[in-house]
């Protein structure tokens, strides 16, 4: 472990960690992995009325190398699961995952042969947003929850 290891627990370390986390949480570059109906509410959240841009998370980056927040929006089928896994693996640390909607969280009411029953069976998830589809206010609430989680990340985790 490098410099971060020696700074853990010190005054400089905690101030540094706070500053880094503050920068990260207010400049999330999202990767919208949009599949289904939740995509409509995602569009609505990103547009002028509900405006996700005031949280700093407006810019979609369609390359996993450049994104740090993976929004899995909508149902993931078993045919699509390897693609999701690949996209997640290609993202660089630090990265977070939000399961947007009931289908991404648990499979929704599609309990059948082709739907993944929750993306947390494939990739680790940080925040789950219930709803079918969730209202934009819920999405913004989830984003704020994620921001609190990011702010609380200690320095040694980021090493």
């Amino acid at each position, binding site marked *: 472990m490098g410099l971060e290891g020696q700074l853990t627990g010190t005054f400089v370390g905690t101030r540094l960690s706070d500053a880094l986390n503050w920068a990260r949480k207010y400049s999330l570059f999202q990767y919208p992995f949009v599949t289904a109906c939740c995509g409509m509410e995602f569009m609505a959240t990103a547009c002028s009325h509900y405006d996700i841009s005031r949280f700093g998370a407006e810019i979609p980056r369609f390359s996993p190398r450049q994104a740090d927040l993976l929004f899995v929006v909508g149902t993931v089928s*078993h*045919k699509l*699961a*390897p693609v999701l896994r690949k996209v997640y693996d290609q993202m660089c640390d630090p990265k977070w995952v939000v399961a947007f909607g009931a289908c991404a969280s648990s499979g929704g009411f599609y*309990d059948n*042969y*082709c739907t993944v029953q929750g993306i*947390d*069976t*494939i990739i680790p998830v940080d925040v789950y947003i219930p709803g079918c589809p969730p209202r934009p206010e819920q999405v913004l609430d989830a984003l704020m929850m994620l921001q609190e989680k990011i702010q609380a990340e200690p320095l040694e985790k980021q090493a």
Partner: protein
Amino acid sequence: MSKHVLERLQARFADQVEETHSNQGDDTAYVKRDKLVELLTFLRDDAELAFNLPVDLTVVDWYQKREPRFEVVYHLYSTTKKHRVRLKVRVDEDDARVPSSFPVWPGFDWFEREAWDLYGVRFEGHPNHTRIMMWEGFEGHPLRKDYPINKRQPLTTLLGEQK
């Protein structure tokens, strides 16, 4: 609905049409599969019938309820004459194949692939006879009545399972 579509079809292909009905106003004809392509070509080219729009193709699985097991259902429409017809071809489980309608209209291309993928009915002469909804390597035909709804075949390792 006017019955003249069914009458004209029966007049021309009397030996191929098994029975007809017009329940709920939908003209339906049960036909044999032997001269299916010729029959569909007639429906398309005849001046009075002029079925130019292929609407739908699907399969009904009468598992343990009726023999033969599968019914391949075609829906056709004519934009000029404004009439519709439904054709049904009955096939057995052991011999579930039907000539492809691709030479007549390309518009049943993916419908036939879907029927093969989900029901297991072969369409002979189809240029790209592969699965479309599920992946190559999926075992079984999910929409058959004997395929359990919850039988999943995951393509990736699930977290918590180690290979």
